[in-house]
């Protein structure tokens, strides 16, 4: 087949959080290049099941780049070599015939491995629960045009809101820092009038939760923004710092 390639997959296998993991190499033959990477893993799993072996556990859900469930550290990059794309949006055509592709789980103390390539990213949810929301009184919705918001702010907030909470930023960071994620979640409200009333409480609570869960201190390497599948910008982190310092100074 002209547009099909064969390759090896060097995959991290770990039966449970307690057990020691190891790499296992598998071979896939004649995979059409327009197969998605996760489909290639599905094919591998079918072969493993047929052979009576344990299939590889990996996270996935929407498979269209919006849910943030897929992960995988592929050949040294979270979500693989493509930029601005999730693992579910990665295709086999990105790889060469005969290549060995190394697939590892996200590695961070705050993201313990559950099984194989699946990690527990509940820490990000806990940060969200600490303050990543706006409180509304019940009642009729306000007219959308009653609160003027500049196009610039609206666009910027929307860009920040596109974070899907996948954790690639943490996986990419040599400091295991979740600052890009928290910065996106703080920015999406900090830029809008609806977010202002709770802004101080929010930034303090979310950062305190992030520290409590053992994420690292940001040294502004920028690996997070370079690897983020949603292109969340590094400037969000500066906004987060600004929000936090001004909240603390007004305590």
């Amino acid at each position, binding site marked *: 087949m002209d547009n099909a390639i064969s390759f090896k997959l*060097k995959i991290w296998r770990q039966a449970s959080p307690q057990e020691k*993991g190891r*790499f296992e190499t598998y071979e896939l033959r004649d995979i059409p290049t327009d197969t998605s990477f996760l489909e290639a893993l599905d094919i591998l799993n079918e072969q493993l099941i047929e052979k009576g072996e344990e299939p590889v556990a990996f996270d996935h859900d929407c498979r269209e780049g919006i849910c943030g469930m897929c992960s995988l*550290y592929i*050949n*040294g*990059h979270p979500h693989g070599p493509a930029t601005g794309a999730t693992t579910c949006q990665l295709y086999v055509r990105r790889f060469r015939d005969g290549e060995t592709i*190394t697939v*590892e789980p996200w*590695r*961070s*103390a*705050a993201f313990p491995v559950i099984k194989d390539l699946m990690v527990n990213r509940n820490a990000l949810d806990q940060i969200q629960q600490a303050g990543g929301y706006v409180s509304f009184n019940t009642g009729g919705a306000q007219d959308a045009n009653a609160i003027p918001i500049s196009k610039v702010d609206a666009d910027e907030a929307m860009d920040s809101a596109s974070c899907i909470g996948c954790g690639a930023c943490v996986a*990419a*960071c*040599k*400091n*295991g*820092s979740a*600052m890009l994620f928290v910065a996106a979640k703080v920015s999406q409200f900090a830029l809008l009038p609806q977010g202002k009333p709770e802004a101080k409480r929010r930034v303090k609570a979310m*950062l*305190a939760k*992030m*520290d409590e869960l*053992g*994420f*690292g*201190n*940001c*040294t*502004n*390497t*920028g*690996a997070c923004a*370079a*690897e983020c599948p949603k292109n969340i*910008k*590094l*400037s969000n*982190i*500066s*906004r*987060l*710092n*600004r*929000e*936090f*310092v*001004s909240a*603390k100074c007004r305590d």
Partner: protein
Amino acid sequence: MWLTNSSVGRKIVMSVTGLFLVLFVTFHALMNLVALFGFKYYEAICEFLGANWYALVGTLVLAAGFVIHICYAFWLTLQNRSARGDDRYAVSARPKGVSWASQNMLVLGLIVVCFMVLHLIQFWANMQLPEIAGKTAMKGVQALATAFGPQWWYITLPVYLLGFAALWFHISHGFWSAFQTLGTAGDKWIPRWKCAAMWWATIVFLLFAVEAVYFTLHFNGIINC
């Protein structure tokens, strides 16, 4: 206290002390430059500083800046290592746009410390320290002549140049990173601060390097100006 028990607070301490040290090394490089225009002017600066009360207060503030910066550097780096976890990636790649310096700030800082140890032995221990102790101190130019003269230059010059190079890398990231940490960067200003960091680091490096090379040539009698 949020400057110790929050990650952003700790980074604020890092950036403020870092920027203070950047200002210090810049002044230091400029004061050395005076020697290139005449050693008598350099001697005048040395006399002016000496062990006067203002020089001592300055030294103490500076030492505090270094100590805080270095203590926080180790503290943050240790925390970051444990946040990363014990399992390392088998394959990892530095993404485009991520500078090498940004991922090696502690190592670069430690090289600077090694240089500083030699530098303090050669100058501070011969000049301000004996003066504080009430002993006879070396003159500024005399200390320069010893460090860069025939007996020591082949140790002094390489160690100094290595220290300056490490400082270049450290400032080339640290300078803009400090402004990002302080919340004074945005989409427009990140590239501007990065550009300023490169210029600042390069100018400081060139000043120090030219000075060290000039002293070596001068005190070995190779040039006579």
